[in-house]
């Protein structure tokens, strides 16, 4: 391990919590400012990639966790789809949220459902991009 290695790894490790916080802000604040599920998923992924750089690279390659990441990605997409079916269950159309039996005004229900959908998108995107990254780094030495 050379000296520049120490610098790179320390900086990468220091950046990770701030990037995760920024990703959560982008995800949950997407209805008020710039951002949304796609951007937040990408930012989460870059935080995880930096965490991987911060650790020893060999250690990261031998990690079998990558093969389980598809569960995360699929669950995000399923969360979106199932949220759409709630509209049918409540007597409306697919992806129609206005008839949901929640004790809020209609626009609040819409805002809540939009946030849930954004969270689903974020989970799906970050899971799948992480899977791509792990697949490329993990094999074919």
């Amino acid at each position, binding site marked *: 391990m050379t000296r520049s290695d120490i610098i790179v790894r320390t900086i990468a490790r220091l950046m990770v919590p701030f990037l995760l916080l920024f990703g959560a802000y982008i995800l949950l604040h997407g*209805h008020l*400012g710039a951002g949304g599920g796609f951007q937040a998923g990408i930012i989460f992924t870059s935080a995880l990639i930096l965490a991987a750089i911060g650790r020893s690279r060999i250690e990261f390659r031998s990690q079998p966790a990558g093969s389980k990441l598809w569960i995360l990605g699929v669950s995000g997409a399923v969360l979106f789809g199932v949220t759409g079916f709630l509209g049918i269950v409540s007597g409306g159309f697919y992806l129609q949220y206005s008839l949901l039996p929640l004790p809020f005004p209609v*626009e609040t229900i819409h805002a809540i459902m939009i946030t849930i959908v954004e969270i689903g998108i974020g989970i*799906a995107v970050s899971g799948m991009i992480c899977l791509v*990254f792990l*697949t490329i780094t993990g094999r074919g030495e």
Partner: protein
Amino acid sequence: MIWLVNGVLLIALIVLAAWALKTRDLLVSAMILSVYSFLMAIIYAQLNSPDVALTEAAVGAGITTVLFILAIQKTSRMEEDSDDETIQKGPLAIVLFIGLILALAAGGMPAFGSPDAPAAIVSGNLYLEEAKEVTGVVNIVTAIIAYYRSFDTLGEVTVVFAVGIGIIALFLRGREEEGDDEK
């Protein structure tokens, strides 16, 4: 003043694109494309579209560069020298012809941000007027993505899902082959 900044940014984009094409070092090329994406993000932000700017900065300058660098690390860094350095006339003529058509078509486009543009008349103005009351969401881009155009977004998530399934298929096939080698 802002036109000067925009002009410098656009010229820098063209210079960077030409440089990325010319250089033989693929790592340098990936870095130049990363800078290119950052400049695009600045242009988008200056055009009052922070959502697109954020996406461009995160995807174009961040993840894409990482994937390029990984691909270069797996293959080779320097592009092979080719003897044929001459510019081919046929493709150049086609490119110039299509560019001329696009330049002529650009003259017929509506003015930037015009409220009379077709995109604004059909649906854009409606979203701007009623999105906040109907959805309770201040950011109209999010309202369109997750409410008005929910089906489109579901399709995009399905595409991401399909990417994942493709990768899983490749992953599992590779693992089976490795298992065969061990036997």
